[in-house]
């Protein structure tokens, strides 16, 4: 049956991958320089190159929202963003929301309202909610629900997520 051997490497010339490009990102207020291939997404750059694994990969196709981060203060999908295209950008991830050990009001509200179970979608939910607060477009419960619909929570914590966002809105002076 099967035998162990390293697959014989063909002698023909190699197929090149991509030349690395040097980019600078300001991630959570820290300037980082990294060498990435053009095909490396911002998500993989954060997780594999900068070891910021708080940002999650849930589908890698922009369908679940787990990879949501803030770029220049706007929430975006990092799995559909090439890192090279964000050279020079300011990125905020879940690791950058708590200031000096004090939780961001959204983080505290998510704990208070048990707005998660497994926790995997949570960083994306919180970053998305931070973007939502900054946008200032959600005034009603229905608007929060609609504008948070890009973040799937398979544990089904949605009502608690909405309650947590409402709590944080109160704290940040937004109308709920």
């Amino acid at each position, binding site marked *: 049956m099967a035998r162990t051997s390293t697959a014989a490497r063909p002698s023909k010339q190699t197929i090149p991958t991509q030349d690395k490009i040097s980019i600078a990102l300001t991630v959570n207020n820290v300037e980082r320089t990294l060498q990435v291939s*053009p095909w490396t997404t911002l998500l993989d750059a954060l997780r594999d190159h900068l070891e910021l694994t708080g940002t999650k990969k849930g589908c890698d196709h922009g369908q679940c*929202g787990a990879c949501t981060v803030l770029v220049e203060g706007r929430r975006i*999908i990092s799995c*559909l963003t090439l890192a090279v295209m964000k050279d020079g950008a300011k990125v905020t991830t879940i690791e950058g929301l708590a200031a000096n050990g004090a939780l961001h009001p959204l983080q505290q509200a998510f704990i208070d309202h048990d707005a998660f179970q497994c926790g995997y979608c949570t960083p994306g939910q919180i970053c998305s909610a931070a973007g939502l607060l900054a946008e200032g477009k959600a005034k009603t419960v229905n608007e929060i629900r609609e504008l948070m619909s*890009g973040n799937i929570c398979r544990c089904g914590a949605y009502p608690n997520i909405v309650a947590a966002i409402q709590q944080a809105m109160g704290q940040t002076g937004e109308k709920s």
Partner: protein
Amino acid sequence: MINFQYVRANDVADAVRHIATDPTAKFIAGGTNLIDLMKDDVERPSRLIDISRLPLNTVEETTDGGLRIGALVPNSDLAYHPLVQSRYPLLTSAILAGASQQLRNMASTGGNLLQRTRCAYFYDTATPCNKRTPGSGCSAINGLNRIHAILGTSEACIATHPSDMCVALAALDATVHVTGPDGERTIMFADFHRLPGDTPQRDTNLRPNEIITAIALPAPRFVTNYSYLKIRDRLSYAFALVSIAAALELEGGTIADARLALGGVAHKPWRDTGAEAALRGQPANQATFTRAADLLLRDAKGFEHNAFKIDLARRGIARTLTQAANGTPQSQADKKVR
């Protein structure tokens, strides 16, 4: 994803130069659709030309009272732009019906026009698909075609165009401004997207060496009597089964002018000027709306799993026209249909 090259264009002319030298290259702006397709090896560009930093990100009033929207204006910025919200609320509503806020923050106006179909066979390289591999056959015609087209289909392809924004742009008589090696030209929105015919691999009439620079809207109309209604399998963040953009100008109870365009039913945003003509000069009532719907759907053809769309579209058209006539446009946040 294949091992593409990456270059950044310095200006529009530079971008056109890059694409002209490499016909297998692609522009990238928001990337929300292209990167998705590249990860599935559906799109295999030899080179990505990054146009995201070109100065095409402004919304400006034009001398004829319309708007010129830079091709790189993010969908969300466009939706919430004060001039769009106040003068083209149909466009705002349609944009906010699509995707999620994160994706709208990334996706560009020009890129939205170039979205490719959500047909599952197009995405799955293990199955035949004429759009992906011309001549390989259409798996959808006799396959899972619940989300597929009922209008303008061909033997080669029954895919739909997935955009919401484009349905409103079609209704609003937008024009597409493009630049190529031979200079600029303008494409009427109705002529921008194609029907599949026997070349379903071509979604649009944009030439391979052209770049979209702007979308122009004529002077505002239909500010009061409009609605965008999207019908889908869950209440948000799903592609349309059928979506309807309706806009009316009323004089008393009579329709002075009308626009009617559908999404989710064809290979392109489906606008039917014949149906619009049938609305003009008629009383704004159910009989008129139903007649227009019947006219629009006169050649509709269902397949095994999507025949329901014909009747759904018929009801949806009447409903959306009612919303428009009543001045009660559908809210994208409140899920009760008005």
